[in-house]
C-alpha cells in the first residue's frame, strides 16, 4: 500500500550512520570511533561557529553589524557570569561561551530546513551521549575548582548555613544526592528537550503527508491544521534551541558559583 511506503519514522532522524566508510575505525585503543553523521554535524557546527566569531575579530573601534553580534554574545556570557559568579567568573567566559555557542549552533543547525535540498540535518544535542559528555565536563570543572579552592571544606557545600544540628545529616544527604544528580539533569534536560521537539515535528509532518495521501477531506481536517501547527512549533523550537543552550550555560555558571563561593 502507498500509505505504508510514505510512512514517516519519527525516530529515523536520530539514527547514527558512519560516513566515508569509517565503520571499522578502531584507532583509539580498540574503541570504535567511526566518523558518523553526528560527528559530521559537530564539525559543521565548529566551522560555522569559528566563521561567526572570526567575523567579529576585526577589532574595529566602531564595530560593524557582525562584530556587534559577536560582541553582544561575549558580552551576554560575560554579564551572566558577572551576575552569577562575580569577579571570579571572568576566567570561565571562554568555557561558558564555548558551551553556550556550541549547543546553540547545534540546536539551530538541527532545525535548518535543508531537508528540502535532500540533505538530512542531524541534531547531535538530541543524543544523551553528547549532552552527557558536556554535562560531565561542566561537573568536572565544578569538582576540580571546588576541591582546588576549598579542599575538603568543599563538603560544607552540602550543609547550608543555619541548619539545626539534628538536621545536618539528613540535609547533607539530600544536598549530596541533589549535587550528584546535577550532571544527569543537565544532560537529560537538553537531550529530552531537543528530542521531543524533533519527534513532535516529525509526527506532525507524518500527519501532513498521510492526510494529503488519504484524500481531500482528511487534507482539510488533518493535513492543513497539522501544517499550521508545524509552523508554529518550528518557531517554538527555535526559541527552545536558544533557551536550552541558555539554561545549560546558566546552570553551569550557577554550579561554578557554588564551587567558587560555597554557600
Amino acid at each position, binding site marked *: 500500500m502507498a500509505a505504508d511506503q510514505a510512512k514517516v519514522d519519527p525516530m529515523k532522524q536520530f539514527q547514527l550512520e558512519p560516513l566515508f566508510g569509517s565503520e571499522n575505525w578502531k584507532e583509539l585503543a580498540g574503541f570504535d570511533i567511526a*566518523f558518523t553523521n553526528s560527528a559530521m554535524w559537530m564539525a559543521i557546527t565548529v566551522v560555522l561557529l569559528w566563521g561567526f566569531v572570526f567575523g567579529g575579530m576585526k577589532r574595529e573601534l566602531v564595530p560593524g553589524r557582525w*562584530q556587534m553580534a559577536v560582541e553582544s554574545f*561575549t558580552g551576554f556570557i560575560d554579564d551572566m557570569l558577572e551576575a552569577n559568579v562575580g569577579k571570579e567568573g571572568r576566567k570561565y567566559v*571562554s568555557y561558558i561561551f*564555548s558551551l553556550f555557542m556550541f549547543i546553540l549552533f547545534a540546536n539551530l543547525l538541527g532545525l535548518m530546513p535543508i531537508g528540502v535540498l535532500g540533505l538530512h540535518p542531524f541534531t547531535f544535542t538530541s543524543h544523551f551521549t553528547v549532552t552527557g559528555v558536556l554535562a560531565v565536563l561542566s561537573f568536572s570543572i565544578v569538582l576540580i575548582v571546588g576541591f582546588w579552592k576549598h579542599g575538603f571544606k568543599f563538603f560544607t557545600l552540602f550543609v547550608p548555613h543555619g541548619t539545626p544540628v539534628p538536621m545536618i545529616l539528613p540535609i547533607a544527604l539530600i544536598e549530596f544526592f541533589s549535587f550528584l544528580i546535577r550532571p544527569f539533569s543537565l544532560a537529560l534536560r537538553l537531550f529530552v528537550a531537543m528530542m521531543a521537539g524533533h519527534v513532535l515535528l516529525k509526527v506532525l509532518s507524518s500527519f501532513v503527508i498521510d492526510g494529503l495521501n488519504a484524500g481531500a477531506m482528511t487534507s482539510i481536517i488533518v493535513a492543513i491544521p497539522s501544517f499550521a501547527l508545524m509552523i508554529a512549533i518550528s518557531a517554538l523550537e527555535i526559541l527552545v534551541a536558544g533557551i536550552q543552550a541558555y539554561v545549560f550555560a546558566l546552570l553551569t555558571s550557577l554550579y561554578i558559583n557554588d564551587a567558587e563561593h560555597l554557600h
Partner: protein
Amino acid sequence: MPQIAQLAEFWSSQVFWTLIFFGLTFFVIGRGMVPKVMGTVELRDNQIKDDLAAAQAARDAADQQEEAWRERENENRVAAQSLIADAKAKAAAANEKKLASAQKRLDTKLAEAETEIEAARVSAMAEIEGVAAEATQDIVARLSGEKVDKRTARAAVKKALTNA
C-alpha cells in the same frame, strides 16, 4: 530510540568526537578568539571612558577659564568705573575753580566799572554845577544887572540842586 538502540555500537564514537569537536571549540574559539573579541570591547570601553574624562576635564578647564575671565572682567569694570568717577570729580573740581575765578574777575570788573561810573557821575555833577553857576551868574546879571560872584552863585546852585 536510536540513542539507546545504538548505544553499544556508537557510544565511544560519540564521546570521542564530542570531546574532539568541543575541545576544538574551547581551545580555538573559546581560548583563542573570545579573549581578543572581549579585549576589543574593553579597549573600546576604556577609550570611551578616557574620551569622556578628557571631555569633562576640558569642560572643567573651560569653566575655570570663564570664571577667571569673569573675575578679571569684573575687576576691569570696577577699575574703569573708579577711573570715570575720578575723572568726573577732577573735572567738576576744575570747573568749580574756573567758575570761581571767572566770578572773581567779573566781580572786580563790576567794582571797577562802578567806581568809574561813580567818578564819572561826580565829575559830571561838578561840571553841571560849574555850568549851572555860570548860567546863574549870567541870568542874574542879565535880569538884575547885578554882579554875583562865582562863590555865591555856586552855593545857590548847590542849594537848589540838593533841594531838587
